[in-house]
């Protein structure tokens, strides 16, 4: 999974228009609710084999912060 595919995953489970996310968005401006958090954990588990810590997700403020949590596992 690369960065664009990662954004596409976020768009899918937050039900956003395709290509909407660029990375600068604040999570407060997005439908980033408890269901989205759980979807994020599932996505990281399924596609990146990464166990994301819920506490680190709770601290994330922007899409860039979410990206930073998984960056090591993404393809270039």
């Amino acid at each position, binding site marked *: 999974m690369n960065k664009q595919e990662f954004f596409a995953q976020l768009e899918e489970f937050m039900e956003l228009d395709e290509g909407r996310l660029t990375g600068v968005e604040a999570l407060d401006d997005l439908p980033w*609710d*408890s*269901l989205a*958090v*759980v979807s994020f*954990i*599932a996505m990281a*588990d*399924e596609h990146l084999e990464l*166990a*994301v*810590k*819920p506490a680190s*997700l*709770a601290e994330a403020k922007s899409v860039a912060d979410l990206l930073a949590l998984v960056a090591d596992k993404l393809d270039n």
Partner: protein
Amino acid sequence: MSESIFHGVRMVGVAAAVPDHLRTLADDAKMFGDEEVFKISESTGVKQRYTSSTLCTSDLCYAAATKLLSETGYAPETIDALIFISQGPDYILPATSCILQERLGLSQNCAAFDINLGCSGYVYGLWMVSSLIASGAVKRALLLVGDTSRHCSPEDRSVSLLFGDAGAATLLEKSDDDLPLNFVVGTDGSGANHLIIEAGHCRMPLKPENQIRVECEGGNKRSKADLYMNGAEIFAFTLRVVPPLIKKVLAGANQSIETVDAFVFHQANKFMLEHLGKRMKLPPEKLILALENVGNTSSASIPMAMVTHLRNRLQKESLNLVLAGFGVGFSWAGANMHCGPMVIPELIKVPVPSIPE
């Protein structure tokens, strides 16, 4: 995780009971709105559940046990042990199992005790009962499990749309057959604060101020005396623990996904169960999903799923089952056993008494 194998234990029957008062998504929409309720229900898989503010867990377990004893034809005085597993006892003391011993007309020679567990409670109970029977301490035991949803704040959509009330009874006895029952159990108390009712007992006694509902994450309102659940932490915990648990149960029992007839897991929520199924590559037809009509019923969810989704098969044939409970504690237990043919009454609906004036 601790592993154990027992022999010479047979499941005679299973029964489950709910209050006859139905709560639907239309009822929930009055509080949270159609769109929100639909979105949550799509994820949890819960479309309705049975609830009551007057029936206790013990009332539901009593109804299930009475029906089970009557359908199996077993006399109450032949029961050597009664174990009640719940987080909703009738009183702080005495143990609810003692009250149920008298109410069910069991012998005074019957051992009775309570265990405080939730999601993992049923499989833990089977482990305990199997150990008692295999050791020769008892010949026949009633395992009663369940919880009610009355500690959920009606203004907290993280819990109030998910949980339903239920009580279940399982009858087990000593058997001459030599089929093994394999168990794996474990605990991680570092997760205690992720699923908790803080106020109302010794650590935080009930006071007026901790019964005031205040706004929390996502606009949910709850008090310290209401159930709190951190869904993300619970989900991360199950991803960490359940796949290795199932692997260990299968390996210990020398079984494989192919040889197992059905995987009956604690019915936490649909999203979690489907993800776990995918992750463990379980064939969807072998993974039981039984939340739609009853919700998450805590320790009763596994016997409930057996009643609502495996009844026809278990009445006629022996099924090779993998059971697993996981959650509050954190606590978990997995088992492999052959169940059936056995007695399984239809789901019992208990009339809800009106609140006395």
